[in-house]
């Protein structure tokens, strides 16, 4: 079962040695969102953005099932509803966040989703004008709870 692999996944950030922040973009099944949010929240991830999107991910003609119907074959049944979640975290927290999202979204069926990790140059909190690590850090969040820093 891929659960063990997901729990031990490590993200290769070596292409961006100087980058302090990364955006973890997860495309998942919409009804898994509440589980994923709850798990992230429990680990102190308190900042995230979620949007409704549609997408396709067709491998070798195999079809994804959504609402009892096969998707991915013909052009009229191609795009499937997904939820997109964006979380910006510090370098050292990327692995933890990816593992939490991946295990919480996993069902083992085609269409479980994908996770992309993007570099982020800087962060600005609009209310206070803070930038960088100060703006990224959430009081009572993952750094306070677990000590995982990374910057």
């Amino acid at each position, binding site marked *: *079962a891929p659960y063990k692999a997901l729990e031990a996944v490590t993200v290769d950030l070596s292409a961006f040695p100087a980058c302090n922040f990364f955006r973890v973009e997860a495309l998942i*099944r919409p009804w898994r969102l509440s*589980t994923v949010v709850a798990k992230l929240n429990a680990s102190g991830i308190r900042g995230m953005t979620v949007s409704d999107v549609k997408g396709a991910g067709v491998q070798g003609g195999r079809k994804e*099932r*959504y*609402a*009892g*119907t096969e998707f991915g074959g013909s052009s009229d049944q191609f795009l499937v509803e997904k939820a997109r979640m964006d979380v910006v975290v510090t370098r050292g927290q990327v692995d933890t966040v990816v593992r939490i999202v991946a295990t919480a979204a996993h*069902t083992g*069926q085609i269409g479980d989703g994908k996770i992309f990790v993007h570099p982020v140059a800087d962060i600005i909190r609009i209310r206070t004008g803070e930038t960088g690590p100060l703006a990224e850090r959430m009081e009572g969040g993952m750094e306070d709870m677990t000590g995982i820093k990374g910057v």
Partner: protein
Amino acid sequence: MAMVPCPSQRLSLSSSIKSAAPHQICVSRPSRAPRRPAHLAVTAAAAAPQASKALDRFSAFDRVSVLSEALPYLQRFRGKTIVIKYGGAAMKDESLKARVVSDLVLLSCVGIHPVMVHGGGPEINSWLNKLGIEAQFKNGLRVTDAATMDVVEMVLGGRVNKSLVSLIQQSGGAAVGLCGKDSDIIRARQMVEKDIGFVGEVTSVNPSLLQTLVADGYIPVVASVASDGKGQGLNVNADTAAGEIAASLRAEKLILMTDVPGVMRDKDDPSTKFAALTIRECKELEDQGIIAGGMIPKVDCCIRSLSQGVSATHIIDGRQPHSLLMELLTDEGIGTMICERPL
């Protein structure tokens, strides 16, 4: 009584119900239930015919207390859709059949929306026999040639479906019998690769007719015959059909009625039954070979509909009287619940 073939699970509730009259369902009612019944007074009315000699030793207060204890469950599932796959022993035994039907009507009376999906293998076999057609199976699946398909469609859509509808009507529910061809509820493609004739894999489900019926308080009863879009009927597995219909309705629950107590660690020992499993635990048990044989397609069917957004799936023992209510309205349940988060 012979109607409880499984001696293993003599729970206190079932033993008190066992002596209830088997034909309680035929008790005449002053009038048929209203189309949108959703208040508790109706609950009491629906439960009343259950009161037989065995229940006489309970005082009126006892009975009312038990009813009021069900309130949190009724509230939790009110307005939710529950897809029930009906089959196996519960389908053959008349008294079990009557109980399933009365459970269904009770659920519908308290504002829960049941949708019934059924197969009917034994009934098909007996009609094939009468017509002198030999039933053939290949890897557990029925080889369905054109003549067999005609019989399958007639028996499932005509006889089995309509007898369930009329039983529900008799016990005061409002049932509408359909097969997958009606309004293209189930569209399928022929599984040519398996070379077993007109057996289909579900390609799409159109839930709009079911949603209309459910919203108006009807109980849809769907036979697992699908259309291929070109006029050919296809025989689809009733578990799969139920799972996909549950997914299309974004149902709260999918309940598969089977002839076993549930998923068990040792398949011969009902005391090793799992009350609840997650998808992950199911996969691990499959890898260990504990979930094996005929249980694999059932569990996979559950996982398939869970991954499409059904909140919980249940594999229950259809041989137990009132297994539906036991699973829905008690904490212990009667079978195995598979869902994402454990209880």
